[in-house]
């Protein structure tokens, strides 16, 4: 485990001491040099880097990637400041984290839900530092995203804060002890910070601006999720984005079907090639199909 200390620039709501984020990094086995860096960004409230650590991360490292995971502010083992939870602050955290880790080559960003929105935010800010984006059940921060997330936050405040005991009892009975434990941490985050109002006050981007993104993008959805059932969501994806609907899956598709997500991510990142352009090898003359013109 490593705690990475990010300084406190203006506008983040952090004190002068900045914020400390919990980071985990997995490298290819046997000291092999990595082919590229992939940064995994988790979702809001009940999520943490553990969702990656226990699903796709070890296989991505085994496939030769440098895998960076971190707990977003307020989540997991990272610090939980009282305020400073607008989307743009989460994007600044990712920016400062990669600077701090001295990662200068373009990275593959993989985001789950809100983590996907953070990934899009980063790519819009630094297109030259992104080799590609893969998102799971996520949308860029358009007006329609803000409407959705604000509604979800309002509901959560009612359920987890105003009726915490009843809600936790229901979660324990229907979703098991572990989910209840996660819900308890989420309730603490909502109760002790301004996250609910901050997220709802995030800055949005126009669909047009999202369509100006030129990096390769993969957008995965559970076919039964609310997001996949919405009208017009494709308009707010970068042009040429590949969308994949996983039948029989809902919003928690990463936790429910990690093997399918793993396969998709590995083949997609493989297709994008490595961060450094491959050396062009001249094609031997006479090979069938070789372009000899």
């Amino acid at each position, binding site marked *: 485990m490593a705690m990475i200390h990010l300084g406190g620039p203006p506008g983040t709501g952090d004190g002068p001491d900045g914020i400390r984020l919990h980071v985990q990094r997995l490298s290819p086995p046997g000291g092999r040099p990595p082919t590229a860096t992939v940064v995994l960004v988790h979702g809001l409230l009940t999520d*943490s880097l553990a969702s990656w650590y*226990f*699903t796709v*991360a070890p*296989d991505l490292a085994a496939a030769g990637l440098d895998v960076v995971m971190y707990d977003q502010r307020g989540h*997991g083992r990272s610090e939980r400041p009282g305020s400073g939870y607008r989307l743009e602050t989460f994007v600044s955290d990712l920016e400062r984290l990669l600077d701090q880790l001295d990662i200068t080559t373009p990275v593959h960003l993989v985001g789950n839900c809100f983590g996907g929105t953070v990934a899009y935010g980063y790519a819009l800010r630094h297109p030259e530092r992104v080799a590609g984006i893969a998102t799971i059940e996520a949308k860029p921060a358009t007006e329609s995203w803000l409407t959705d997330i604000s509604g979800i936050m309002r509901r959560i405040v009612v359920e987890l804060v105003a009726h915490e005991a009843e809600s936790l009892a229901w979660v324990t009975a229907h979703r098991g*002890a*572990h989910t209840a*434990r996660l819900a308890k941490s989420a309730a603490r985050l909502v109760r002790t910070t301004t996250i609910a109002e901050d997220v709802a006050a995030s800055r949005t981007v126009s669909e047009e601006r999202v369509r100006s993104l030129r990096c390769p993008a993969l957008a995965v959805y559970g076919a039964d999720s609310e997001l996949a059932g919405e009208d017009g969501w494709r308009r707010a994806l970068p042009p040429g984005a590949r969308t994949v609907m996983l039948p029989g899956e809902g919003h928690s598709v990463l936790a429910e079907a*990690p093997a399918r997500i793993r396969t998709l991510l590995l083949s997609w990142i493989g297709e994008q090639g490595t961060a450094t352009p491959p050396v062009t090898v001249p094609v031997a003359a006479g090979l069938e199909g070789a372009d000899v013109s």
Partner: protein
Amino acid sequence: MTTVEPTAPAPAQKTPTAQAVLADVAGMLRTMLDEEGLDDIEIAMDTRFTDDLELESIDLVTLAGTLQDRYGQEVNFAEFVADLELDEIIGLTVGQLVEYIVRCLNVAEIQAAETRAAEAGVAEGS
């Protein structure tokens, strides 16, 4: 007629027993639980991380780091859980982890013994 098999490397004396590893792991867990204000919980082989100790998945990630600090690269928790489903990770017992650690340490010890034997062989032959 009986064939005499080459003697396998003797089990290393240095490899800790399951009991010793359990004591180690229980110590690490107590430190984590103290921070959560949960002490005085008995930790045995059949104790479950989630149901009995109320640990979250992120606590298991922290534990993985502590294990690596204690036992080195041979004990790779990420590799161990890579073969498990999420439900199995959530239902994991302390005993399953202890057995895995003992297995890793045994393998590491046998490999070290083989390397020593091979080096000795090279030295004799030269």
